[in-house]
């Protein structure tokens, strides 16, 4: 780490890390939203026997979502160290209780999503089981909720003190 800090300032390093965290979050958000839409909205069939495919290849997104989610959880856990000292303490001093409380809940939301990943992977294994269609849909939507909640709350916390914050 010290070698890196010979070339860039410490706060610049953490801001770059935070920006990568944000960029990966956007990718994860897109993937999990597409998959959720695919399971929530039925595919369309054109006239006759010509069956159209699902508008989004939902199954193919599964591995990407798992990899991005784990990567994001790890990056978030790393950045969380800096947040705990340099962001949360001023947040308490300035009495931003709603932001703080929402961020505390974010920790739990991310964790619950992380624990469901093995089951999520199992339900999306090929061949897809019709018996698991309901729970597959529920787990996917729950993961989408976890990602959306974390993204919004993380963004608000970033606005308090992060990339581009005053």
């Amino acid at each position, binding site marked *: 780490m010290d070698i890196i800090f010979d070339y860039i300032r410490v706060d610049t390093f953490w801001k770059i890390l935070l920006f990568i965290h944000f960029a990966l979050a956007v990718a994860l958000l897109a993937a999990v939203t597409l998959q959720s839409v695919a399971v929530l909205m039925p595919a369309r*069939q054109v006239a006759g026997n010509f069956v159209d495919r699902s508008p989004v290849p939902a199954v193919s997104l599964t591995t990407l979502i798992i990899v991005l989610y784990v990567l994001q959880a790890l990056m978030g856990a790393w950045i969380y160290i800096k947040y705990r000292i340099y962001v949360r303490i001023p947040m308490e001093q300035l009495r931003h209780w709603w932001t703080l409380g929402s961020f505390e809940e974010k920790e739990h939301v991310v964790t619950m999503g992380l*624990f469901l990943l093995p089951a999520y992977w199992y339900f999306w294994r090929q061949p897809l089981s019709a018996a698991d269609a309901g729970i597959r849909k529920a787990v996917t939507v729950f993961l989408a909720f976890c990602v959306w909640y974390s993204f919004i709350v993380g963004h608000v916390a970033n606005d308090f003190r992060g990339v581009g914050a005053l």
Partner: protein
Amino acid sequence: MTQTLDVAGRFPQLDSARAIEAPAAETQTRSKVGTFAITFGIAASLLYTVYERLNWPLFTYLPRVNRVEFWLYRSPPAESPPMYWYGWIVLAAASALVLALIATAVPAQWVRRATVFGCALAALWPTSLGALRLFIDWVSFNADYLNSVWIAAIPALVGAAAISYFAPSQWVQRTWTNWLMIVPISGLIVLGYSLQQYFVR
């Protein structure tokens, strides 16, 4: 002219075609993997909520001094703030991993009943403790000796055992995967409620 078709509607054809070809060993492996994944999801979510509420981290990380202490460490002001979140996650994941591995080795019916028992216990234990505390406040004599989590555990254990024993097999079988949603959502409600101090100031 267009009409809609549920994607899931096409799955049975795919499944049945593959299921005929699938050898018994593959089906059994798939079933074990499923048991592991589902048990892990339920157990980890439940245990994480319990460990967070009881504040049982496997370790405490002190970011200011970059040090890790085993279990719960109440740091002095110079070393504060302590971080317990990592410790709760690791402990919950490790405990759930053991439970999920055990689940793959025992009959499926036992796993499903044990899941009902665990979830019922998790709901009944705090309920029982709350009821005991109400009772202590209500009675005129000194009943403070009843104010114990271990005394509250007795009716909770009996209730959970009764529910898991008398629950119809079909219901236990049918609802098993549903716990995968019920437990994390309930956990988030409990954990969110515990954060109300931030939202009511």
